[in-house]
């Protein structure tokens, strides 16, 4: 079973986000493998251990060397990195078109990704581009007899969805416990091939992947206001709460 895993790097979850000159300040911010992508890599490796085949890591944009090395050190077989200056101003559409093309260059039975990748849009868009079924936010996955059976969290319970493979599956926390790269894995990762492709190599032009969305401005969420404690006896406090919810918060 050959599996493509879509991978990106993201800001360290503990990084402090700053906006400078109308853009997010990336200087000095540590980048890590997108945590949800890490579940996707782990799931791919488990499926490979069970069924054989190859795991290929695929990413778009040149921003992922550390994440890619980590995935290879965990046990993925090879990587494809699409790097092109035309990708710089891209959006989720751009990324999805490029990734779908890159996936098409290899034989695959399954495409895995983290569910949060690119505003939670990219993996679904890749499925659309490839004409594949997809299941999102998956916490349990079984592949058997040409079918993928996935459990996904929904409000108040679980939903079990079955689709034929190939399919695109996005990973949610809980799907598995990602392994640490071993010393041996880190050493072997150095020797594993990373294929670098340009847009031209994929038969795409800059126009075909031009962004559909333009960012107008960035702003930080406003600071959380301090909470209010309503004192006094319960009946009066409840009445006061109801009044505030109606008159100040406009919530009821």
């Amino acid at each position, binding site marked *: 079973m050959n599996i493509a895993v879509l991978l990106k790097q993201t800001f360290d979850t503990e990084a402090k986000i700053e906006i400078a000159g109308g853009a997010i300040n990336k200087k000095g911010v540590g980048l890590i493998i997108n945590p949800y992508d890490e579940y996707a890599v782990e799931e791919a490796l488990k499926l490979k251990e069970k069924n054989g085949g190859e795991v290929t890591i695929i990413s778009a944009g040149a921003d992922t060397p*550390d994440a890619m*090395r*980590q995935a290879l*050190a965990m046990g993925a077989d090879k990587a494809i990195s699409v790097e092109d200056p035309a990708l710089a101003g891209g959006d989720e559409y751009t990324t999805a078109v490029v990734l779908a093309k890159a996936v098409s260059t290899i034989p695959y039975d399954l495409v895995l990704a983290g569910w949060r990748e690119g505003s939670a849009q990219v993996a679904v868009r890749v499925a659309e581009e490839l004409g594949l079924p997809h299941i999102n936010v998956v916490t349990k996955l079984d592949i058997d007899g040409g079918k993928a059976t996935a459990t996904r969290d929904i409000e108040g319970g679980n939903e079990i969805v079955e689709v034929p493979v190939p399919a695109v599956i996005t990973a949610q926390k809980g799907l598995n416990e990602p392994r*640490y*790269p*071993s*010393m*041996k894995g*880190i*050493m072997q*990762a*150095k020797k594993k091939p990373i294929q670098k492709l340009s847009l031209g190599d994929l038969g795409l032009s800059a126009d075909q992947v031009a962004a559909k969305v333009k960012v107008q401005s960035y702003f930080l969420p406003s600071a959380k206001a301090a909470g209010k404690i309503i004192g006094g006896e319960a009946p009066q406090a409840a009445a006061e709460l109801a009044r505030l919810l109606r008159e100040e918060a406009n919530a009821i």
Partner: protein
Amino acid sequence: MTINFDLTEELQDIRKVARDFAVKEIQPTVDEDDKAHRFRRDLVQKMADLGFFGCVIPEEYGGNEMGWLAATIIAEEISRVHASLRLPFNMNPNGPGCTILRYGTEEQKIKYLPGLVDGSLLGMFAITEPDSGSDVGSMRTKAIKDGDSYIVNGNKMWISNATVCDMGLLYAYTDPAKKIKGMTAFVIDMNTPGITIEPITDKLGTWGAPVGSITFENCRIPASALLGQEGQGFKICMEQLNDTRLGCQAGGLGLAQACLDAALKYANERQQFGVPIGKFQMVTDMIAQMATEVDAARFLVYRAAFLKDRGRPCTMETSMGKYYVGEVVNKCADYAMKIYGSYGYSEEYPVARYYRDAKSYQIVEGTSNIQKLIIGETMLGYRKRI
């Protein structure tokens, strides 16, 4: 080659794995484990599974040959979260592992090295005795040849891993009349009849690392346990200490970093007189000293590892690292305690543990005074550079 302060990508990846492992696997229960004086064999096994004990052992014996700098960085990051868990690096690959690699027969290498790397064996080394510490030559344990075996009698004290180990290095006199030329090294199995082990539970720090005394009473070990030649023991011991001294200072370095990490966090958080206490110059000063000295210590430790990786003389440089780290980690623990004030004195924060654990770095693997002797005598030309 020009000086390059950047670690290779490989070493950066190794640091990341060690750090992630320490934070995710060790951190959640570290205070609980330490207070319970609990030795986490399962965590030692997980470290072995990731290849953490294979850096200084060749591939043919199960290692990964990543080298001393890699081993140093891993032990540093583990110790940064729990100093007690840096001990297994010395008890497995650095001490018994490297010594068997240097002096062992092929049979001994095959018997012990893969197990020391994969964690199926836990090791120790037995040098110190109740009346023999810095003066290693004054040890009294004897191993007297008797036909095809040796009969061992004596007491070893302060032996890390004593209560949990499967095998280890033993230093004893085969010919006491020859003084240190009569000392011999052995590699022994701990299930040999005539060995009694007593735990030492009352100690200042490193509560998560078991230590004990080992008594040999007419303990018969086979001639095949001989490591190197009879009479080579003192030399073998000094070489072993040069290796374990590096593992030890890596641990001290990680602990010093932990003190700095904690101090920075608290100096920014804690408010007094309406501002974070980091804004007060006397606190700023302590942070500046800690940060500078931790960095300086790191450069000394990494240089010792660098020289060892290249097989160059490094005894003095290793002693410099050990001496300096021992002093810096104690200063950092002291300053962290001052910055935390009464919260540092309480068990609510990890600083009290850091303070307890720091002290051993001025004592074990050669005291700070012994390190200074080695450095001073080498500089003055009284001691050969090796």
